[in-house]
């Protein structure tokens, strides 16, 4: 069924994706199309939404550098978060995978744990830890001599990245974990017998093979952090707005939905382009692993 697949069955993939496709067209594309339509409508504080077709919102986004700054910050934070999550999450998944059964499941739980409590409570925890200059984190870092002066975490991009990476970490760990399950342990042995040290094995042998997992994780983390709302809102506050909080503001505070819809549409389009682009790039680079 499978190898045949590549040659035969021009219909098979469509049959398999049809249910999901129908679901998406039915309950996602239509609402989304409505939202895109919305971005071309007009709006006034006291006249509400006017279903006309104008480019006002788009022109505003294109010409006002305010929006460029927001989007730039959004992607900067998302990229940093993704990097941090990948840099820490992938090794952790690898370490976990090498533990013996009992510990493995225990620590897996511990790492998945954060996902199980509300993002509100979780971020609250961070806020408590960061808590200004005399927050626990700063006290600890200073007493360890890592830093001399307290690092401001709350209402800074640093804090946002740290908290976002924490929130997103389990996604990365789990994705990589799933990919690691497929590795043939003998291959690692083979590399070792050829003289490869642990670092080389990870970089040259393990990494390329778990790329699909890292990629899944990175896509999830990147997308979620670029469209995240709660964490940036709580840690970043209103002065460090990102695209999602900007859209949120327009939708909920100003009620200028057409403008919010335009921001959201732009964010969506940019994200889709970035994700699909990097996906294709990496799939080509690691073509043999994805076969």
């Amino acid at each position, binding site marked *: 069924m499978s190898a045949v697949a590549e040659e035969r069955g021009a219909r098979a993939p469509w049959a398999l994706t049809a249910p999901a496709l129908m679901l998406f067209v039915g309950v996602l594309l239509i609402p989304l199309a409505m939202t895109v339509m919305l971005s071309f409508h007009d709006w006034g504080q006291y006249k509400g939404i006017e279903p006309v077709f104008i480019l006002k919102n788009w022109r505003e986004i294109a010409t006002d550098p305010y929006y460029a700054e927001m989007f730039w910050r959004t992607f900067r934070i998302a990229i940093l978060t993704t990097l941090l999550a990948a840099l820490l999450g992938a090794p952790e998944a690898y370490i976990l995978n090498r533990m013996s059964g009992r510990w493995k499941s225990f620590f897996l739980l511990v790492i998945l744990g954060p996902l199980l409590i509300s993002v509100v409570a979780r971020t609250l925890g961070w806020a408590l830890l960061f808590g200004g200059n005399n927050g626990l984190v700063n006290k600890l870092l200073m007493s360890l001599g890592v830093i001399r002066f307290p690092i401001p975490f709350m209402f800074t991009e640093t804090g946002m990245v740290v908290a976002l990476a924490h929130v997103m970490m389990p996604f990365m760990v789990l994705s990589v974990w799933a990919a690691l399950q497929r590795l043939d342990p003998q291959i690692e042995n083979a590399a070792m017998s050829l003289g490869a040290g642990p670092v080389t094995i990870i970089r040259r042998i393990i990494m390329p093979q778990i790329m699909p997992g890292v990629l899944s994780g990175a896509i999830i983390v990147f997308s979620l952090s670029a469209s995240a709302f709660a964490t940036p809102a709580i840690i970043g506050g209103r002065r460090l707005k990102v695209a999602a909080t900007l859209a949120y503001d327009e939708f909920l505070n100003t009620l200028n939905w057409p403008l919010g819809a335009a921001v959201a549409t732009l964010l969506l389009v940019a*994200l889709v382009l970035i994700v699909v682009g990097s996906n294709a790039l990496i799939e080509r680079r690691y073509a043999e692993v994805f076969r």
Partner: protein
Amino acid sequence: MRRNGPLALVFHTIFVIVMVAPILVVCLVAFTPEGFLSLPTNGFSLRWFRTIAQYPEFIHAFWVSLGLGALSSFVALLFAVPAALAIARYRFRGRDALAALFLSPLMIPHVVLGIAFLRFFTSVGLGGSFAALIIAHVIIVFPFALRLTLAAATGMDRTVEMAAVSLGAGGWTLFRRVTLPLILPGVISGWALAFIQSFDDLTMTVFLAAPGTETLPVRMFLYIQDNIDPLVTSVSACVIAVTMTALILLDRFYGLDRVLAGKGDPGR
């Protein structure tokens, strides 16, 4: 299997500490006798756990969240697994576009989705119903189910499937007996992420939840509207306790690493 070196263990320890620190803090604060959040707390009290009893809607909301999460992540898998298999193994026109479409819910700010769904469901007469909530959650958790299944299905040894086919297994049987067990780690991880995502979603659900279908995060959010008091932390602590107990039981009776790593034991 090689063991982890000391450096790896140090890394691991720090990692785990950082991961649990905020949660630990939340749990600690839950035992405060004060009426407000404070750290470090002076004293120990179960006051805020007792307070939960005065808010039966929290308990109700917990069940709503649980049901919603379980149901929507399961339904999402039903749609996502076949789609992931198609995307993993066929090279067909429109493949990339489909993949992008299926991942798109990840990329839309949930507030936008919330409002889009609210408008949509209101216009088709499903506004405020539990069904609408489930459909919306299926959509937002779908990418998780898809992406992790996809990671497991790419690069899977196809000759194993060929062997099954040669023995007469086709279609559903092939899937159930061979393909699914082989991609199970991915599917289960996907389910777990999907469940958690649904369980935790607030921004979108706020718009769709109606009286009676308010989820726990919505409840907590509404509660902390005017006052953040330690009740949020004690409720969180309870959620942690409940889920940990459930997972430990699962581990006891089935083996969590087997659930996550698939049934065929990794052996040497």
